[in-house]
C-alpha cells in the first residue's frame, strides 16, 4: 500500500470535523485509556514487569542472529517450514506459492499487521484467491474497502449503523439493529468461511526460541479457528518477534493486554509448536512461517533499535492527543499513532512520510505508557533530524529557522534585533494588549490572539534594576 502520509494535516483537519470519528475516538479514551490505568493500579508489580520486559527485548535484539537461528531449528524440529523474506515482494510471492501448492481457493486470516505491511490481501486477491479476514474489526474494514485505523481495534472509527449497513449489503437481508445481532450474524457468515478455507493465515505476537513455538493473542478466538481448521497454517511475522523462553513470553504477556485494553489477560493466548502431531485428529497438517525483514535488520544495532521492542499493544496511540484528534486514517499507512510515526518512515521511506514524526508536541505521554519504555519522542526527533538533513520540510520553515539561528548565534546582534522588535510590537499592541493578526504568524493568529509584548526585554529591565540597586 502506498503511503499518503504527506496529507496528514489536511486529513487530520477533516477528521476533527467528523462527528462519527469524534465519538469513536472519545470512546477509546474513556475505554482503553481508563482501562489501562485501572489495570496498572491493580498490579503492584507493573513497573517491575516493565523493567524485565525491556531487559528481555534488549537482550534478544543484541543477540537476534543467534535467537533466530535457534528458533528456526526448533520450529523445523517440530515439523514446521521456515521461509525468509527480505522485503514485501518476496514475502508476498512466498505466501502465494504456499497457497497455490495447497490448491487454495479461499484463505482465512486472523489479524496480522505484517500482512497489512506487505499488502498481502490485495496481492492474493489479484491472483484469484478469496481472502476473508476473521478478526471482526478487520472483517468490517475489509467489507468497507478501508484500511485499519487502529492497531488493536481496526474498525474503531465506525458506527454500528454503518456496520449494519455493510453487513446488509454483503450478507443480504435487512440491516440488524443491535450489536449482539450483528456479532451473531458475523459469526454465522464467517463460520462458513472458516470451514471452506484451505489455508489459514495468522500473524504471531511472539516467537519462542526455546521451543520453536509461535504465540497468538486474540479475544475472539479467531486465530485458533483460522489455524485449526484448514489443512495448511501459514504464519507471517517480523524477525524482531523472538523471545528466548516461554517464561519470557509470560512476562511480556502480562503487560500486553493490560497496556492495550486494560484486560488482565486476553481471552485466547495460544502457543503453537508445529503442525498436528501424527496421532492428532485435528489441527493443520502443514505449518509454514514467513519471517520478514523489510527494514528491520537495518534497525538492529542502529539509532532506532529501541523501536524493535514494540509488542504492538496500541497504548501509545490510545494516549496520544494527536492520534485522538486526528484518528488513524490521517496517518496514511499501516502503522498509526506514535509507533506509526517512528516505523512508517523506516518501512515506507521518509520522503513520503516525514510529516508523521513532525506531527507531535513531544508531550511524552506515549513513552510514559509504553510497556517496553520505547523513547518514542526521541526517535521521532531523530527522524526530524534526518528530514532536516534531506531538506524535506517546506522551505519557508527552513528559512525561518535559519534566520532565527543566524541571530541566535550572535548574542549582541540578537539583543539589538529583539529590543527593536519588542519595542515596535509593544507600541503597536499597547492599546489592545494583543494582536488578532500578525504577518508571518497566520498559523497562530487564525485561531488565537497573540499577546503584545511589554515593550522592553527582560535584559533591559534587569540592567535597569541592577543599576537602581547599585
Amino acid at each position, binding site marked *: 500500500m502506498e503511503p499518503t502520509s504527506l496529507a496528514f494535516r489536511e486529513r487530520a483537519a477533516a477528521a476533527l470535523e467528523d462527528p462519527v470519528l469524534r465519538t*469513536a475516538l472519545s*470512546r477509546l479514551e474513556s475505554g482503553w485509556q481508563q482501562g489501562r490505568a485501572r489495570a496498572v493500579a491493580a498490579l*503492584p*508489580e507493573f513497573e517491575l*514487569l516493565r523493567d*524485565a520486559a525491556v531487559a528481555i527485548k534488549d*537482550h534478544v535484539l*543484541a*543477540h*537476534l*542472529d543467534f535467537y533466530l537461528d*535457534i528458533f528456526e531449528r526448533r520450529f523445523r524440529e517440530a515439523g514446521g517450514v521456515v521461509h*525468509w*523474506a527480505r522485503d514485501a515482494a*518476496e514475502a508476498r510471492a512466498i505466501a502465494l506459492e504456499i497457497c497455490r501448492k495447497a490448491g487454495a481457493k479461499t484463505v482465512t486470516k486472523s489479524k496480522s499487521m505484517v500482512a497489512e505491511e506487505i499488502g498481502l490481501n490485495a496481492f492474493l486477491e489479484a491472483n484469484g484467491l478469496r481472502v476473508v479476514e*476473521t*478478526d*471482526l474489526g478487520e472483517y*468490517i474494514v475489509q467489507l468497507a474497502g478501508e484500511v485499519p485505523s487502529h492497531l488493536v481495534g481496526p474498525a474503531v472509527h*465506525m*458506527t*454500528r449503523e454503518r*456496520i449494519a449497513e455493510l453487513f446488509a449489503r454483503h450478507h443480504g437481508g435487512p440491516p440488524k439493529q443491535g*450489536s*449482539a445481532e450483528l*456479532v*451473531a450474524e458475523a459469526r454465522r457468515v464467517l463460520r462458513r468461511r472458516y*470451514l471452506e478455507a484451505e489455508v489459514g493465515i495468522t500473524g504471531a505476537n511472539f516467537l519462542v*526460541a526455546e521451543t520453536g513455538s509461535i504465540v497468538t493473542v486474540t479475544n*475472539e*478466538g*479467531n486465530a*485458533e*479457528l483460522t489455524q*485449526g481448521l484448514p489443512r495448511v497454517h501459514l504464519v507471517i511475522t517480523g524477525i524482531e518477534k523472538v523471545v*528466548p*523462553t*516461554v*517464561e*519470557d513470553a*509470560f512476562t511480556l*504477556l502480562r503487560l500486553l493486554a493490560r497496556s492495550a*485494553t486494560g*484486560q488482565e*489477560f486476553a*481471552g*485466547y*493466548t495460544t*502457543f*503453537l509448536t*508445529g503442525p*498436528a*502431531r501424527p496421532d*492428532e*485428529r*485435528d*489441527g493443520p497438517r502443514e505449518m509454514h512461517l514467513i519471517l520478514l525483514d523489510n527494514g528491520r535488520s*537495518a*534497525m538492529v544495532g*542502529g539509532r532506532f533499535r529501541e523501536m524493535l521492542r514494540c509488542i504492538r499493544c496500541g497504548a501509545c496511540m490510545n494516549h496520544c492527543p494527536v492520534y485522538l484528534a486526528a484518528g488513524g486514517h490521517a496517518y496514511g499507512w499501516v502503522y498509526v499513532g506514535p509507533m506509526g510515526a517512528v516505523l512508517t518512515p523506516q518501512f515506507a521511506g521518509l520522503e513520503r512520510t516525514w510529516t508523521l514524526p513532525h506531527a507531535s508536541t513531544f508531550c511524552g505521554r506515549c513513552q510514559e505508557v509504553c510497556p517496553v519504555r520505547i523513547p518514542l519522542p526521541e526517535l521521532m526527533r531523530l527522524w526530524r533530524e534526518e528530514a532536516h538533513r534531506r531538506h524535506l520540510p517546506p522551505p519557508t520553515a527552513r528559512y525561518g529557522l535559519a534566520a532565527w539561528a543566524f541571530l541566535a548565534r550572535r548574542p549582541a546582534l540578537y539583543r539589538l534585533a529583539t529590543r527593536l522588535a519588542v519595542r515596535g510590537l509593544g507600541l503597536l499592541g499597547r492599546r489592545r494588549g494583543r494582536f488578532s493578526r500578525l504577518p508571518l504568524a497566520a498559523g497562530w493568529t487564525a485561531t488565537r490572539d497573540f499577546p503584545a509584548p511589554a515593550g522592553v526585554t527582560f535584559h533591559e529591565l534587569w540592567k535597569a534594576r541592577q543599576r537602581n540597586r547599585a
Partner: protein
Amino acid sequence: MSEARSAIFARLRAGLARPPGSEAEAAAEVARRLAEPRPGPIPARARVAGEERVALFTRMAESVGAEVRRLPEPSAIRPAILDVLRRHNLPARIVRAADPLLDAARLEAEPLLEVRTGVPEEPDPVGLTVALAGIAETGTLLLASASARPTLLAFLPETSIVVLPTAAVVGSYEEAWAGLRGRPGFPPRSVNLITGPSRTGDIPPSIELGAHGPRRLFVLLVDSAALPGR
C-alpha cells in the same frame, strides 16, 4: 540455505557489529539463558495456595464471564452438565474428549444425552474437554492438544464445558507451564490459555460474547479427581 536468509543474517551481523573475538561469548550467553529458563517477576497475587487459590481462580474466571462450579467427585459431572444444559436451554448433544476423567463421568449412560467422542464438527452445539491446569492469577484455563483431546472441542462449538481437577489449579502461568514439562511429546502442539468466553468490542457500543469462539464457558472443578492423565 536460502539467499534471503544469508542476506538477512549478514545485515543483522553488520548492524550488531560485535567486536572481533566476542562471538563465542555472545553465543555462550544465549546458550546459558536457554539452558535455565527463569521466570520474570511473578505477581504476589499469584502466590496464594490452598482454598485461597481456588477462590481466586473462581473469582477471576467469573469476572470475565465464565461460570464456575465446584463438584465433589467425577460422578457429579453428569448431573452438573445436565443442569447447565437445561438452565441455558441448550441442545443435549455433546462432543467430548477421550479423557479418563470424562470416561469416569459415564455420560454415555445418560439417556437424555447424545454423546460422541472425537473431533467436533459444525454444528455440534456443545464441546466438553479437560484442562490440564487452572491459573488463579487471571482465572485462566490451560488446555493442551493431544489425540485424545482435540483442540477444536474448546473452540468450534458455541458452548464450551471444561472439566478441571481442583488439584490442578495453580497460581501463575509459569507453574502451569512447568506442569507440562516431563510429559511425553513436550511441548504439546497447541497450548491454549483460555480466559473467559469469546468476546469482541469491535461492534459498538458494548462488548459482545461469542464472536467466533464459544459464547458460553462453563468450568467444572472436580475436587477428588487426580491430576490430569497423560
